[in-house]
């Protein structure tokens, strides 16, 4: 009887465990498969990784230990089965993607778990120690979120050799394309938009490949090259993201860019970078790894870009709006209901007036970087008018959506930052309609996080007619900021989650309104 119960227990445990495993591998994926970042997530979300109900299972386990084996084991079986059948899938913004890597990792994890299952089987049935077996299973279950770390570590050498093969293949594919111009883009903000704009501008004349949505790591760039680089491509645009030092350098070593664009340097990912100097050094890897005949394209209005002196001597072109003596300068910026108009002056060259559907000064910076590359690759200022006019807004980046009833959404929900958030609020402030801001605040800003969020709230207080804050706990700095700015409480709503916030928005929509959705809202941070 005990034996049958133990087998049932192992089975129920396996089911409950598999669910936990899927959740943990999902979180690991969201943290870029990096154990240390995953651990940080666990630290910040202990209630998710170690749920109270898991501990409840200690009671039947104790019963087993005290000699009430049958009752204890039955309760454990029921408990694990309940955990498997009753735990609901959470709403997830970014779903788990079952990549070959995830499958390999799950296989390893399954083997690890099978070993534990077998061990507890041996202990419980062969050695006739059901209590020990039950406790072993319970401990493994409670610590379930660490199993995937074991699997990840075990698989690391395999993943490394697989990746290396891909890296080498991608590198030689790029080098075999003799006429290919490789353009690298990095920056704390604006690199994705710049990539899209550049692609739009260049593809009026040239065959362009760019890294898709968030393929901005070495692996992502490699995948793009191996999957999509065609012999006829004239330009390859690689977006390079950095979360720690050396991230950019390793992509540069792969793609050997001839043109490098540095859009901005800001206090992002300070949790890993610690200081702004490290961010500078890391971002400048894209300029310092340029060949002698390469070209660096830099934003002169960014103080963190200008306060660093690169160690190499390749040609550099600067762009800006507020700085003088730049190679590409935008001026006479005017906003109209259909977008904005601005004039670009090329140093020692002509000038041209552009109209776009996009909003905000940051989009002018992004366009300027694109124009600089276009000129380098032989496009005329005039030729770039049409592609710039037709440039679609980048999704979730101050994207003015089509009105739905009274509501026009200004969607800036994708990975925002202090500067960008401020600019978005400024753009919202220029709208004629009722102005609503929905935000969960900004994250990953290190020690300045509280201050920066508070500042954003105080800035928004002067621009918005209504502010919806998403998440009680994490929007505390914003709430403080609004209070300090004397923003009326009647015009504020603190929502439980995004859905609650959106419900409030619909409630307010009795008049024409523009709603700014600001900042990232991923599920691993809505605590």
């Amino acid at each position, binding site marked *: 009887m005990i034996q049958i119960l133990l087998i049932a227990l192992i089975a129920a445990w396996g089911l409950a465990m598999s669910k936990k495993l899927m959740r943990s591998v999902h979180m690991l994926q969201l943290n870029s498969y990096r154990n240390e970042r995953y651990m940080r997530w666990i630290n910040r979300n202990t209630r998710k990784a170690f749920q109270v109900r898991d501990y409840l299972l200690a009671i039947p386990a104790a019963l087993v230990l005290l000699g009430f084996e049958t009752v204890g084991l039955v309760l454990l079986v029921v408990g694990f089965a309940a955990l498997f059948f009753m735990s609901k899938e959470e709403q997830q913004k970014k779903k788990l993607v079952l990549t070959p890597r995830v499958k390999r990792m799950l296989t390893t994890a399954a083997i690890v778990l099978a070993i534990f299952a077998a061990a507890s089987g041996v202990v419980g049935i062969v050695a006739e120690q059901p209590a020990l077996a039950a406790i072993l299973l319970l401990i493994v279950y409670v610590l379930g979120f660490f199993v995937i770390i074991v699997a990840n570590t075990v698989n690391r050498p395999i993943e490394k050799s697989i990746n290396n093969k891909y890296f080498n293949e991608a590198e030689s594919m790029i080098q075999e394309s003799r006429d290919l111009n490789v353009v690298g883009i990095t920056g704390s903000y604006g690199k994705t938009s710049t990539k899209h704009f550049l692609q739009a501008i260049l593809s009026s004349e040239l*065959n362009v490949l760019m890294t898709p949505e968030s393929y901005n790591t070495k692996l992502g760039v490699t995948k793009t090259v191996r999957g999509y680089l*065609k012999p*006829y491509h004239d330009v390859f645009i690689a977006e390079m993201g950095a979360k720690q030092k050396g991230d950019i350098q390793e992509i540069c070593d792969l793609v050997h860019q001839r043109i490098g664009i540095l859009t901005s340097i800001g206090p992002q990912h300070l949790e890993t970078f610690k200081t702004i100097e490290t961010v500078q050094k890391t971002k400048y890897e894209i300029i310092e790894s340029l060949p002698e005949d390469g070209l660096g394209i830099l934003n002169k209005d960014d103080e963190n870009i200008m306060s660093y002196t690169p160690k190499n001597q390749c040609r550099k072109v600067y762009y800006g709006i507020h700085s003088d003596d730049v190679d590409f300068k935008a001026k006479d910026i005017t906003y109209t209901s259909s977008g904005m108009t601005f004039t670009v002056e090329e140093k020692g060259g002509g000038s041209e007036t552009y109209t776009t559907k996009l909003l905000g000064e940051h989009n002018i910076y992004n366009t300027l970087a694109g124009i600089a590359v276009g000129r380098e690759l032989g496009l005329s200022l005039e030729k770039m008018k049409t592609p710039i006019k037709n440039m679609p807004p980048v999704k979730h980046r101050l994207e003015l959506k089509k009105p739905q009833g009274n509501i026009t959404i200004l969607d800036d929900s994708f990975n925002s930052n202090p500067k960008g958030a401020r600019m978005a609020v400024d753009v919202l402030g220029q709208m004629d309609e009722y102005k609503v801001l929905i935000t969960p605040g900004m994250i990953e800003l290190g020690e300045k996080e509280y201050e920066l969020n508070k500042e954003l709230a105080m800035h928004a207080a002067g621009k918005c007619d209504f502010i919806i804050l998403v998440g009680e706990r994490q929007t505390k700095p914003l709430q403080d900021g609004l209070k300090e700015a004397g923003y009326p409480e009647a015009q504020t709503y603190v929502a439980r989650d995004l859905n609650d916030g959106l419900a409030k928005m619909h409630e307010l929509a009795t008049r024409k309104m523009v709603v700014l959705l600001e900042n990232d809202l991923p599920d691993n941070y809505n605590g």
Partner: protein
Amino acid sequence: MKTRVGVIFGGMSVEHEVSVISALQAINAMNKDKYEVYPLYISKDRDWYTGENLLEISNYQDQKELFENAQKIQLVRDSEGKVHLQKDPQPKFGKKTVGEIDVAFPVIHGTYGEDGILQGFLELLNIPYVGCDVLSSATGMDKVVMKHIFRDWDIPILEYTSFYSSQWLADRDAIGQKVEAELGYPVIVKPANLGSSVGISKAANFEELEEAVELATEFATKIVVERMVTNMKEVNCSVLGDYENAEASVLEEVLGSDEFLSYQDKYQSGGGSSKDGGGASKGMESTNRIIPAEISDEQTEEIQTIAKKAFQVLGCNGVSRIDFIIDQDQNKVYINEINTIPGSLSFYLWDPSGKDFTQLTDELVKLALKRMREREKLMFSIDSNLFSSHSGGLKGSKN
């Protein structure tokens, strides 16, 4: 890396052999430093082949041997969107594909190749391809549809009438009266949708009309009858480009042995003895033509302007040849037809215009890539799944 181009030729058309010649000429001309060319031959039985032996014209004499030495394939698209030449049938062991292509280059004249059908297949594969798209190919192939569009755009065409073979069978007298009243004899009778001159004949009276229609209905169910220009000059102009930019070539004047260019004139002149393929190839070039056409500069310019307009009105892409008829009595120019994949790709008109065949093929590939990247910018589907966007949305719909 070289761009891999699949040149598609042969096909199910009366101009099968001409296509082979045109394609091999084009392959020969392509810049091999830049392009890796795969010959993709479609047999008259609709099977696809590739292989080195397809590059040699003399191998085509013995079809059985040709197929034995070539690799039978199918064009397939994989989950990453790459287009492979997959062996047919797929071997159980070993390599399943012969290669991969980045661009398709159709050089098939007439049915199934020049009329949009092949182009539709290539669209589904989502591979860039040279030449006209589905609609412009199809429009260029159907003489009636083409005339409708030209008439709408004030492009001069000869007076005509058209009917289906069933209408002819039902009431040929009425049609005969209409032809006589509206066009007047002599007339030219054509099948509506053939690229070549096959099935075309003239009729000077009702009896001849009956004969001519009988012949034409062997090739098509839709028949066109046109006023025949008796004192005419035939002049052709090639156009290269797309909807944005198009340039016209020098003109050629075609000297037919009969009043109009028959199939024999066009492709088989001097080719009666063309048992060896080389003869056929020579026959192609030795069609009696004068380049540039001996007409006034004014008229040349007029024809070039009309040619470009016609090309762009139909939404053509790549290289087309537009055939004109000059009524010398009235000194008036009429468009006769457009060939969206002209014989020899009209290279002999571009050579004297300052573009050799190598340049021509290069520009054609570039135009194909341009169209592809412009198309990629357009929205073809909506990302969100309407079935899943609203919970209970299906219940709300009318059923």
